[in-house]
Each structure stands twice: as structure tokens, then as C-alpha cells.
């Protein structure tokens, strides 16, 4: 059950991240917007992070057959995902603080350097939680300004991902409980909620223009 959920989560995460990342890349290529560039990095990182963990499970299941995933593969995947979450939060901090404070932008990256090598996976889960919670709060605040209904779905998605990260981190304390499967189910729900408004963006009339760089 846990293995199945883990595979569904990683595949959904890979596909949703890839779809939103490609959409952001098309937007960046057409408009040159730095915001869309940051979203491209964010979602392609999230996609690659999920892919790394999924590939780790596949290698373990079909080649190594050791019975448990190599810890470092899971850690690498989570670190790559955290970089993606960082870029989502980073985009919001630029919007919130720009153009007043370069200081806040410079310290935004600090959590990535304050980790030790001990239990690095759990440290990165907690960093992901903070970044996702920040992104969710900023997104819901933007809804109050713009009344864009898509923002509610994205904020819900980010909140569920944050809750999933929290439960995943907390399952470290109770390793045999249902917390980890629940955290995966919650994260799958979060990824789906994240994709709903993005799937409604009409891309049929957009084409690349070589003159626009």
C-alpha cells in the first residue's frame, strides 16, 4: 500500500511539475518575464525531485532488490524539491519586498546553508514546510487583492503540500503509524489542486516568436 502510494505520488508530482514547468517556460519564451523564469525553475526542480525519488524506488524494486530505498536517493530528491519550493517562495518575497529591501532577498536563501549533514532529509522537509506555508499564505493574500479564484486552488494545493511535508516529517517520530501514507495521500491531493487552475490556461493561440527575446 505504502509502495503504491509512494509511486503514485512521485509520478503525479513529476507530471504536474513538468506540465506547469513547461507552461511557465512557454510563457517565459514568449514574454521574457523574470517571474515566469523563476516559476520554470521552481516547477522543473519539483518535477526532477519527484522523478529522482521515483527512479530510486524503481531501481531498488527491479535491480537492487534490497527491500528498502537507499536513503541518499530520497534525500537528493527531497533537496531538489525544496529548491523548487524555495523559488516559489522567493518569487513572493520579491513581490512583497521589491523594490525596498535587498536584505530580505539575500537572507531568503540562508536556510539552505544552515543545515548540517545529520538527518538532512528531515531538515529539508521542515524547510519545505516553511517555504510552502509561506507560499500558501502569500497566494491567499493575493486572492484578497485580485479575487482570482485560481489563487484559492493554488493556495489549497500549496497548503496540502505543506501539511503533507509536515506529516511526512512527523512520521519520523512515529515510523510505524499511518502518518506517512496519509502524508502521501495529502500531497497527491495538493498536487492535483495545484494543477486545476493551470490546466484551464488556454495555450492554443500562443506560439513562439523568434523576434521576441
Amino acid at each position, binding site marked *: 500500500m505504502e509502495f503504491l502510494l509512494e509511486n503514485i505520488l512521485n509520478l503525479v508530482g513529476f507530471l504536474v511539475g513538468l506540465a506547469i514547468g513547461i*507552461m*511557465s517556460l512557454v*510563457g517565459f519564451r*514568449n*514574454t*521574457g*518575464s523574470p*517571474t*515566469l523564469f523563476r*516559476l520554470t525553475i521552481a516547477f522543473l526542480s519539483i518535477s526532477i525531485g519527484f522523478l529522482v525519488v521515483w527512479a530510486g524506488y524503481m531501481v531498488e524494486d527491479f535491480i537492487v532488490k534490497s527491500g528498502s530505498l537507499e536513503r541518499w536517493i530520497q534525500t537528493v530528491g527531497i533537496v531538489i524539491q525544496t529548491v523548487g519550493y524555495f523559488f*516559489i517562495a522567493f*518569487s*513572493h518575497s520579491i*513581490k512583497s519586498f*521589491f*523594490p525596498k529591501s535587498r536584505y530580505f532577498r539575500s537572507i531568503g536563501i540562508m536556510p539552505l546553508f544552515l543545515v548540517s549533514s545529520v538527518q538532512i532529509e528531515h531538515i529539508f522537509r521542515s524547510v519545505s514546510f516553511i517555504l510552502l506555508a509561506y507560499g500558501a499564505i*502569500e*497566494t*491567499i*493574500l*493575493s*486572492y484578497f487583492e*485580485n479575487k*482570482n479564484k*485560481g*489563487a484559492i*486552488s*493554488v*493556495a489549497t494545493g500549496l497548503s496540502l503540500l505543506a501539511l503533507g511535508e509536515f506529516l511526512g516529517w512527523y512520521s519520523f517520530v512515529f515510523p510505524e503509524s499511518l502518518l506517512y501514507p496519509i502524508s502521501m495521500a495529502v500531497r497527491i491531493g495538493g498536487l492535483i489542486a495545484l494543477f486545476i*487552475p*493551470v490546466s484551464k*490556461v*488556454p*495555450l492554443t*493561440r*500562443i*506560439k513562439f*516568436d523568434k*523576434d*521576441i*527575446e
Partner: protein
Amino acid sequence: MTEYRTHMKIIGDILYTTRDDLLDEEGVTVTYLIRKANISHSRISRILKTLVSQGLLEQVESDGTNKYKISNSGREFLQAYKTFSSFADNFGLTI
């Protein structure tokens, strides 16, 4: 409180003005754009130069005055700008 506009938003405002507010067939004047976009002459001059060089705006000289009107590439850019503004809005962001 003054709303902060990104460089991209200012470009969008200029292109919308040249598309929607055509005073005559030859386009709109710099003075009109300054008033609508609410930015300084030196800044708008730099932006207009870039937009003309990238083919998003067409510059027409009429009675000794430079006028600007949107090109087909500019219209395509505006379509993309509108689509991806809405995309970024979903994330609570401004492009």
C-alpha cells in the same frame, strides 16, 4: 498607496494603449503615452526604442512628430502577455 508596476506591466500598458487608444491611423504620440503610462520621458524613450527595435511597435513620422502604433508581433505579444498574466495570477504573482 502607489501600486508598484513591474517593467513587464509598463510594457503591457504601453502596448495596450497603442492598440486600444489609436487617435488616428498613424498612431499615438509620446506625450499621450507618457500621460497614459505615467512614467518619465527618459524612461519611456528607452522602452519605446526597445519595443521598436524588437518589432513590437511601429514608429511613424508625421508632421515632424514621432507616433507609435502596435505591430502584428506586438499584438501576438499582448495575447501571450494576457494569457500568462492570468497564469501568474493563479500563483498570486505578477509577470
